[in-house]
């Protein structure tokens, strides 16, 4: 892990020294990571792609402000989570103004040749339930449960107190287990 951090910092230094190719390497190295966080928070492939691209465009402009006091991936978490939340908010705003169609299920074009149909169905069920949560609860749940971050790390990323995060996580767990329980009962 330490080697990976060192490699990130070297790439950043090279980019800041004018080596554009270093930025491309950085993108390729972290694109899956950013996509994964964005995919889980936005809940669909198209928005995740859009959000992930915005993250890297933003990085291009702001890499010079990365202080290296924390790991680059922690910084990426922050940008990816906030960018995904911004995208969700802008979607809601556009719908409110009638500039965008009402929420629709966007088809996923994920390639999953090696995953069973059952696993895929579980993922989709969880995604559907996650979409019904308030933005903060969903984000905290994803970062805590799926990414395994500590409350302090999430607090640093979202700028929210750990007490409030714990409340959000607790409510998210309750809502998800209730919703999934109902789905399983119906089946």
């Amino acid at each position, binding site marked *: 892990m330490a080697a990976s951090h060192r490699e990130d910092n070297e790439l950043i230094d090279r980019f800041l020294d004018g080596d554009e190719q270093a930025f491309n390497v950085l993108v390729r190295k972290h694109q899956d990571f950013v*996509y994964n966080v964005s995919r889980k928070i936005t809940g669909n492939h198209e928005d995740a792609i859009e959000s992930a691209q915005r993250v890297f465009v933003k990085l291009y402009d702001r890499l010079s402000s990365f202080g290296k006091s924390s790991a680059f991936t922690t910084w990426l978490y922050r940008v990816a989570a906030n960018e995904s939340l911004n995208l969700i908010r802008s979607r809601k705003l556009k719908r409110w103004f009638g500039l965008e169609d009402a929420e629709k299920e966007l088809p996923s074009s994920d*390639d999953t040749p090696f995953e069973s149909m059952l696993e895929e169905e579980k993922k989709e069920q969880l995604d559907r339930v996650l979409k019904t949560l308030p933005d903060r609860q969903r984000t905290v749940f994803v970062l805590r449960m799926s990414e395994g971050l500590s409350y302090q790390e999430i607090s640093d990323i979202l700028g929210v107190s750990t007490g409030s995060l714990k409340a959000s996580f607790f409510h998210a767990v309750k809502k998800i287990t209730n919703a999934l329980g109902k789905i399983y009962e119906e089946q």
Partner: protein
Amino acid sequence: MKNNKDCSAIRDMIEENVLRENSEKHAEIHKHIASCIECGKYMADLVMLQPATGYHYALPGSEKGKFSALVRTRIEARKNRNWKPVLAVRPAFQIALMMLVVVSVVLYLFRSEPEHLFVLDQTDLEFMTIYSPEDYAYIVYDEELMSLLYEETLFEEDTYMPEYWYNGYYGNEYFYGTDGLTDEEIDYIIQRLGEV
């Protein structure tokens, strides 16, 4: 009544155990959940959810190769764009921006200001600093006060899961407006705020 501080600490341990596979303090957890159904259920929920959430998404193979090229295209497009943000808004957003300004002005003119909004914090008996103090007052967890308010049905029922009211875990998301409170009742609450 259960000790909420115990539950809070135990649930932190449960999360560490289940989510981060840190198996310390096993005995302490099991001793607690033997007599606490809520915490036991919370642990069961986490255990049930963990496999379902452990997956990771990766960019589909068809998009892996072109992703960095698309990012690069957007960066170049930004460098070359002939409009400036804020000063020259893209036409598609001009109407939305105007409407936003109009709606904001209307909402501002007709805003209703709650006299107080109480944030109940059962977590650590500390004042929360979630919202601007000029608009909100805060209460720490206070059983007697909550009983009084509950009996007087001063709290509206919109809220997050009332069953967690007394035995709840992290209570700092219970928000209640004071619509319907008399001046005497508000005075009483503010007086109690000074005492706790």
